[in-house]
């Protein structure tokens, strides 16, 4: 079939669903993606009128996790009396997972939400493409068959799609939102359980501790502490992030290696059992830092230790919100 045709079909049915929702007044506002102002970009958009539906697009550059806009509440998504508007969200799998998980954490009510399900086939790794083509400007990006075609002033390059999507997208098992509630319409998928052998981690796991530390610190070394990763993450909704606290000051805010590493590792720990592997953090990073290894490793530990995957079950509590007396403690206590 080809990526281009797939996307066009998805876009068409997504717009149909959106149009109907607005027409039948089932939602007050639809959050989706719109065309970006330069080739390797898309921009989230909030539309309230049927005639704006054609502004909604779908392609493989839709990297922002739209669930971000729901928590904490923003004035634009509240009615004049301060009540929640009914919201439709264009949801690829990870956006749906994020919405489900936020509902489990009691941050939003799925009754006010309609997930317009989309079978996502992956988000293009912009930073990797930019690094590969060097300093040249991209004039056009399109797809032909299963290749991405990137054109510029004096060049044209082909990139195999499956290789140039985000690392997390390559191993994604939840491409459409989980159909765990009536909130999910359009294309959704049943997710009784996720089968994941985490084979992509075998290389990393075979390294020594020093090598792993080297890899992680190397990746993080260019961090500018802009917090785009934190702000793009739907799970980072704390009123006061741990790095901003000053009674006491837990960690430094500078760009010293120790401060950078601590920020990212502690934030990763706060994601344990909560991260939905959307990769928005890596997609938005201006310096191209890819946190996928840390994300995947955390996911694996949580799955193995607690048999939990975030965002696929509205009933099961995440490990950090739950406790059972029979739980294994061998990593904490010495055997007698």
């Amino acid at each position, binding site marked *: 079939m080809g990526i281009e045709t797939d996307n066009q079909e998805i876009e068409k049915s997504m717009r149909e669903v959106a149009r109907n929702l607005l027409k039948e007044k089932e939602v007050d506002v639809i959050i989706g993606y719109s065309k970006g102002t330069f080739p390797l970009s898309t921009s989230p958009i909030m539309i309230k009128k049927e005639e704006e539906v054609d502004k909604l697009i779908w392609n493989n550059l839709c990297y922002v996790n739209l669930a971000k806009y729901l928590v904490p509440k923003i004035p634009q998504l509240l009615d004049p009396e301060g009540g929640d508007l009914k919201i439709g969200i264009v949801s690829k799998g990870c956006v749906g997972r994020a919405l489900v998980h936020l509902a489990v954490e009691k941050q939003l009510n799925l009754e006010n939400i309609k997930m317009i399900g989309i079978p996502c086939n992956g988000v293009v790794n912009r930073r990797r493409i930019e690094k590969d083509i060097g300093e040249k400007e991209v004039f056009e990006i399109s797809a032909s068959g299963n290749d991405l075609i990137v054109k510029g002033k004096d060049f044209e390059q082909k990139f195999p799609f499956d290789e140039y999507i985000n690392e997390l997208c390559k191993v994604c098992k939840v491409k459409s939102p989980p159909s765990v509630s009536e909130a999910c319409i359009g294309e959704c998928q049943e997710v009784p359980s996720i089968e994941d052998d985490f084979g992509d981690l075998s290389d990393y796991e075979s390294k020594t501790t020093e090598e792993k530390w080297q890899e992680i610190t190397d990746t993080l070394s260019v961090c500018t502490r802009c917090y785009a990763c934190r702000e793009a993450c739907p799970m980072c909704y704390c009123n006061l992030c741990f790095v901003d606290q000053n009674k006491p000051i837990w960690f430094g805010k500078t760009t010293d290696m120790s401060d950078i590493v601590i920020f990212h590792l502690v934030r990763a720990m706060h994601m344990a059992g909560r991260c939905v592997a959307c990769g928005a953090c890596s997609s938005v990073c*201006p310096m191209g830092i890819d946190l996928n290894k840390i994300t995947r490793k955390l996911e694996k530990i949580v799955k193995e230790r607690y048999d939990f995957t975030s965002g696929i079950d509205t009933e099961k509590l995440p490990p950090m919100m739950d406790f059972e007396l029979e739980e294994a403690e061998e990593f904490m206590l010495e055997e007698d």
Partner: protein
Amino acid sequence: MEEKLLMKDQIAKLYDELAKDYSFFAPIKEKGNIVFKKASNPEEIELDYFNSKVPPKEVLFPKMEVLFEYSLDEKDVEIKERTDLDEKRLIFGIRPCDAHSFVLLENFFDFGEFKDEIFLKKRENTTLIGMGCNSPKSTCFCTSLEGHPFQRDDLDVMLVDLGDKYLVESVTEKGKELVQKLSWLTEATKADVEKAQDLSIQAEESFQTHLDFSNVAKTLDPNFDHPIWEEISEICIGCGTCSFLCPTCTCFDVIDETDEYNNRGRRIRIWDTCQSCQYTLHTSGHNPRNSCIERCRNRILHKFSYYPTNYNLIGCVGCGRCVQLCPVNNDLRTIIEKINKIEDKKEEKISA
């Protein structure tokens, strides 16, 4: 001819000579990103670049800077001031837009009764060897702000990439002295100078973004409470990337970092952003800028209204970094166009 030529295979020679007297900052590739760093050898210098991700303001106004150090002793405190402000720096390959940002930065830090000696001293001891932009990107708009891809005014020495060599032009006295020291540079020919002029015209004509800033400040002034700010800030996630990677943003936070075990520490300043929700949070809990709407508005007003009012300058150089790197593509150019339309709508209403 006054102009000289620097062959591309002479960069190492240039570096070896200048690095003796200057800390040589140049575009360097770090994990795939171009940044201005101190080159420890000429091979590190990346000549094939568009512009750095992080603006060269970080050479003089780094992400983290020590204001002073202190040692604590029972009932005594000793303060140690910076002694390294006389270090001579050279920034090689800075683009005209970023060089213009240095003018804005200097103006800001020098303004009023209190002068920021730390920045100003460093600026005084810095020489700029700039590079004209042969291929501006579609997101560049320096020409809309009275800038030009080949603007020499804010540089000490100007280089133009002619393919296998650079045309070298001294602009200031400082620049002239520097070029004279490099006595081994060959003379440029008339053809070289003409080629540079052609490249300049080509570059100017290649601009795709043309924005009208002539009325922006006037329009912004009376429209502080206009509903358009809700629309403009709708998708903003308040991350701060725009401020951090903006060559003219200067807001900072001040922190005391103390090593309690060794009774010493340092007071530092780190980059901060008005987009942070804590930026204006009072200890009492009151926050004058409580949502993205106010914060987004403040940044735009600061650059395009308060800067003109206070300093008679526009606080933007058109480098396009915020456009390229905003995670949600909240394009500044679109915002300016929306602002320009506010006045138009008002006029429509009057004539109707």
